C-alpha cells in the first residue's frame, strides 16, 4: 500500500511538472502585460515533440542518444525520493539530500558529455559553462543542506521535514539564510533568469540551451520534461523543507488531499515570487554569474555560522 502510494506520488510529481512550467509562464505573461498561453501548453509541446522524428547528427556517438534517457531517469529517480504530499513514505529511507545532489550531478554529467559529443562550438561552450555554474552552485547547495542538517541532525529529507513540523514555527536565522541561498542555487541550476534564459537562443548568453541545441524530437522532449521536473523539484524542496505545514503525515485520504492542496498553494505562491524576480531582473553577464553564486555560497555559509553562533547554547 505504502509502496503504491510512493509510486503514485512519483507519477503525480512527473505528471504535474509541466503544469508548473505552464503556471510560471502564465504568471510571467501577466506581469509583462502579455496574453498568456494556456496552462496546458507545455503538455501540448511535449506531445508535439514526442511525435516528431528525432534527427541525430552524423558524428554522434551512443552517448548522444543515451543522454536524454539518463537525464530523464535520474531526474525521475530524484523526484521519487522527495516527499511531495506525504512524509514517512517507504522511499523516505533513501531520501537523502546528498543522494539527490548526486542524481543531479549524474544527469548533468551526461548532458555535458552529450553537448560535447557532436563537436560543434556551441555544444562545447554550453557544456563548459554548465560545468562552471554547477561547480560553483553545488558547494552553495551543499552548504545550505548542511546548515539544515545541523538543526535537524540529519540529511534525510523526510526526517528533516518531520523535525521542522514538530518544532513548530521557529524563526531560525540559519533557515532564512539557507532558504535564500537555496533559492539562488535553484535559479542557477534550473537555468532561469538572471543566470540563464531558457527562452533565448542568443549564442553569447546561452548556457543550458547551447548544450541541447542539437537535440530534436523525442530526445528534446525528454530533456525539456526533465528540466521541468527539476524546476518543480527545487520548488518542492524549498517549500517542503522550510514550510512543511500541511504535508500529510499519515496516509488517510483526507490528509493526502489536504497535503496536495497545501502543496499546490505553496508552489503557486513560490512560482509567483520566481516570476516576479524574472520580470524584475535582467539576465546578467556570464562573468557575473560567479559573483551571483558566490553570494549564494556566502548566504549558505552565513546560515551555518548563524546556526553555530546564535542558535546553540554554549
Amino acid at each position, binding site marked *: 500500500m505504502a509502496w503504491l502510494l510512493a509510486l503514485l506520488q512519483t507519477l503525480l510529481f512527473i505528471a504535474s511538472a509541466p503544469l508548473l512550467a505552464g503556471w510560471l509562464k502564465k504568471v510571467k505573461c501577466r506581469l509583462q502585460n502579455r496574453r498568456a498561453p494556456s496552462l496546458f501548453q507545455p503538455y501540448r509541446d511535449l506531445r508535439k515533440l514526442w511525435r516528431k522524428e528525432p534527427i541525430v547528427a552524423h558524428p554522434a556517438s551512443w552517448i548522444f542518444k543515451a543522454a536524454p534517457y539518463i537525464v530523464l531517469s535520474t531526474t525521475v529517480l530524484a523526484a521519487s525520493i522527495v516527499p511531495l504530499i506525504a512524509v514517512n513514505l517507504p522511499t523516505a529511507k533513501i531520501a537523502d539530500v546528498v543522494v539527490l545532489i548526486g542524481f543531479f550531478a549524474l544527469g548533468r554529467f551526461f548532458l555535458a558529455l552529450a553537448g560535447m559529443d557532436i563537436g560543434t562550438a556551441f555544444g562545447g561552450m554550453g557544456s563548459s559553462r554548465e560545468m562552471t555554474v554547477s561547480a560553483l552552485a553545488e558547494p552553495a547547495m551543499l552548504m545550505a543542506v548542511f546548515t539544515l542538517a545541523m538543526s535537524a541532525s540529519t540529511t534525510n529529507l523526510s526526517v528533516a521535514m518531520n523535525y521542522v513540523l514538530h518544532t513548530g514555527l521557529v524563526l*531560525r*536565522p540559519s533557515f532564512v*539564510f539557507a532558504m535564500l541561498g537555496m533559492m539562488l542555487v535553484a535559479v542557477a541550476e534550473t537555468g532561469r533568469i538572471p543566470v540563464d534564459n531558457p527562452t533565448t537562443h542568443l549564442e553569447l548568453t546561452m548556457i543550458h540551451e547551447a548544450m541541447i541545441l542539437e537535440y530534436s524530437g523525442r530526445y528534446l522532449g525528454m530533456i525539456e520534461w526533465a528540466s521541468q521536473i527539476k524546476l518543480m523539484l527545487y520548488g518542492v524542496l524549498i517549500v517542503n523543507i522550510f514550510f512543511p505545514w500541511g504535508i500529510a503525515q499519515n496516509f488517510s485520504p483526507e490528509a493526502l488531499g489536504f497535503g496536495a492542496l497545501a502543496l499546490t498553494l505553496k508552489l503557486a505562491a513560490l512560482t509567483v515570487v520566481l516570476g516576479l524576480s524574472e520580470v524584475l531582473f535582467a539576465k546578467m553577464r556570464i562573468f557575473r554569474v560567479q559573483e551571483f553564486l558566490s553570494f549564494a555560497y556566502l548566504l549558505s555559509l552565513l546560515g551555518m*555560522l548563524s546556526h553555530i553562533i*546564535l542558535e546553540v*547554547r554554549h
Partner: protein
Amino acid sequence: MAITELSHYQQAILLLASLIVLTSFLMLGQSRLLRLVFIFAVQGILLAITTALAADVLDSPHLYISALLTLTLKGIFIPIMLQRLVLNMGLHRDMETLPNPARVMMGGTGLVVFSYYVCLPIVKLSPLITLNTIAISMAVVLLGMLLMITRRQAVAHVVGFMSIENGLFFAAVVSTYGMPMVVELGIAFDVLVAAVLFGVFFFHIRSSIDSLDVDQLNRLNEVEK
C-alpha cells in the same frame, strides 16, 4: 537545541541580528554609493526594530527611547544627509571598482568566525541565549572596519564608521540592555556631531583635492618624496 525554547520575540531578535550582519555583508559588496547609503539606512532601521523588540522582551522601557534615537539618527537623519551630499556632489554615478568582492566577502566571514571565537568566553558566562548576538555585534564592528579598508570613497568610509557605531550600539543593547541613559545620550550626541563634521569635511576634502577619493590624500608620508 536552544533556540526552540525561546519565545517568538526572542527568536525574532536573533533573526534580526543575523539580518543586520547580512546588511553589513551587502555593504561590503555594494559599489554604488547611493545603494550603500540605502543599505546603511536599512541596517539602522533593523537595529531600531531590534532595540524596540528587546525593550519589549526585557521589559526595560528606556530602550524604547534608544530605539527611537537610533531610528531617527541612524535610520533617517544620517542616511538622508549622506544621500543629499552624494547627490549634491554628483557622486551617485561614480562606481567604485571593488577588487575581487568575493574575496572580501570571504574575508568578512573569517571576521565573523574570529569574533565568535573572541566572544565565546563571554557567551559562556550567561545562560541567556540572546547573548549569543554579542559575537554578531562584534562582527558588525569588524565588518565596518573591513568596509573602510577596502574603499577609497570618503562617503564609504563614513558609512563604515557609522556602521561600526551601529555594531557598538547593538552590543550594548544585547549584552547589557543598553547603556545608562546619560551615556547613551552622550554617544548619540557624539555620533550626531561626528556626522555633521563628516559633512563639513567632505567639502573641505573636495576643495583641497578635487575629489572624494581618499587614496589621493597621500601628501603626508614618512618617506620623503
